[in-house]
């Protein structure tokens, strides 16, 4: 039967709903020697500030039950090197680039957005207002409703690219942040970023991460993320890009049913960098089994218990 994996996120069309999550796939080129990166629905780049950033000293990750903590500290090459050194090759490969942008001030978000808007090959901007691992910027916007509104509406004024604020789960009511994003002029929201967390070496009584605190990701967080996607879907009309612990096509479909229009995969890519075709194949199989022609028919299709 005719079955179409493409999805629409505002004005953005993705060839399938599976996106590599920011901070988990480098800039995309790291994987280009081993797999066809253009076959992914999209690549959310590692977060970019205006300038290069060094990040935190190691140890930067630690494993926990069914998950991991990270405190990378947004090491990155900055937007200018990205457009000069990465974007031309990404464009040549035909990658759908959802560029994740960061800032310590409103002006920085806007300047990074302007630079990217001036270059071909950027499909959308994901606003990182939710990184738990840096002291200034990012999450200070993402944990305040007015901050979220301010950064979304400020970036809205400087770009015509689709903008997708990435929301933190470290708030009481994530749906209110989706609403603030919608009011600010966002085209979609993505959620969830990682959960602020901590792990301690009991022998030495020291934190296992150099940054002390880190963000929890992986299958351990998936049910909470599904709940938050569901809550946002109830609260806003915006398309939602769901993520948090996805490891299988079943997990992808769970997020779609909860209300996501597309999903991102992060930690599972560390375990299996060739996961992408397994997920799209599994999704296609599900659609065939259930007689579904378009992915959007699955989005928000949760049924009530009878």
């Amino acid at each position, binding site marked *: 039967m005719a079955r179409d994996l493409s999805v629409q996120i505002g004005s953005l069309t993705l060839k399938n709903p599976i996106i590599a999550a920011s901070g988990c796939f480098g800039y995309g080129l*790291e994987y280009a020697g081993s797999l066809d990166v253009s076959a992914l629905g999209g690549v959310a780049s590692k977060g970019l500030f205006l300038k290069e950033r060094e990040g935190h000293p190691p140890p930067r990750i630690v494993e926990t039950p069914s998950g991991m903590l*990270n405190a990378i500290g947004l090491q990155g090459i900055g937007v200018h090197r990205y457009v000069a050194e990465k974007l031309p090759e990404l464009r040549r490969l035909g990658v759908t680039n959802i560029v994740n942008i960061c800032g310590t001030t409103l002006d920085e978000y806007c300047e990074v957005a302007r630079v990217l808007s001036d270059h071909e090959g950027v499909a959308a901007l994901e606003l990182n207002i939710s990184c738990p691992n840096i002291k200034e910027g990012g999450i200070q916007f993402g944990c305040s409703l007015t901050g979220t509104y301010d950064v979304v509406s400020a970036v809205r004024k400087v770009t015509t690219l689709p903008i997708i604020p990435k929301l933190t789960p470290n708030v009481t009511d994530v749906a209110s942040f989706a609403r603030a994003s919608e009011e600010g002029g966002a085209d979609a929201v993505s959620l969830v970023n990682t959960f602020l967390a901590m792990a301690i070496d009991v022998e030495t009584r020291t934190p296992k991460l150099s940054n002390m605190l880190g963000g929890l990701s992986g299958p351990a967080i998936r049910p909470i993320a599904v709940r938050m996607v569901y809550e946002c879907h109830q609260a806003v009309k915006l398309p939602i890009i769901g993520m948090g612990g996805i490891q299988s096509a079943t997990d992808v479909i769970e997020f779609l049913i909860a209300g996501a229009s597309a999903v991102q995969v992060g930690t599972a890519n560390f375990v299996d960098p060739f996961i992408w075709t397994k997920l799209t194949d599994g999704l296609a199989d599900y659609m065939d089994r259930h007689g579904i022609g378009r992915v959007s028919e699955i989005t928000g299709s949760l049924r009530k218990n009878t």
Partner: protein
Amino acid sequence: MAVDVLAEILTNRALSRDYNVLGFAAPEIARLARPGQFVMVRPTSGNDPLLRRPFSIFEILRDDRRQPIGVSILNKNVGVGTSRLYAARPGDRLSILGPLGRSWLDVFADAPGHESWFVAGGVGLAPFLTLAEHTAADKRPMRLFYGGRSQSDLYYASLFEDLGASLHLTTEDGTAGEKGRVTLPLERELKARGGRPVTLYACGPTPMMRAVAALGASLHAPTVVSLEPVMGCGMGGCYSCVVKVSGADQHPHFVRSCLEGPVFDAKRVQWEALAH
């Protein structure tokens, strides 16, 4: 280019209660591998532990006609992942991703006339066998300086001897070879080598590699180290395995060990910034 192989375990040789050698049927990886590269092994298909573990490729396994059929790793049972690998049974299948990282040979171009001296501490022996085979094929002189706490930490030295390497074994308790650290004979032999040019290759505990790097610097022997930072993905995606090195402009910065390493010119490494 890396491939992921759901590889059958061909052999599991227990060397002691701590060490074993696992052989995997992975001809694709064996064919691509170069000396000093590594693989990421998934200790289970489940979520405990979640992440893969990095291992130097120890041996290239070959069939009767010398065709590559797989690779082996030298495992030390120290945690949840490595204990599963210690207990793995022949016939089991585990995902093994590779080959990854740069080769020893990528750091310095082979300097003609240089002797290759390998300095290994314990499980740090793993990345040297492929380098020794390469060096033997080139018919170049080589030595292995191999140290451990005790006799039971030293394995497979004879494989290197068979390839023509001269051996300098040390143990801290004196149960095999010379008593003391591996840097003891290394320093003595470096000083006694006259004008012969030597390149040092080191892998082992960080303090050992740092000491070898210092000897190499003071005694004029270019030194390559194979570092073993905590690693999340092995592909450049996670930025967890960073090592602080000096760049072309000498300004120290973090680089991903999985892509720019695990082998580094020891002069570039900012040792005080390494996590232990």
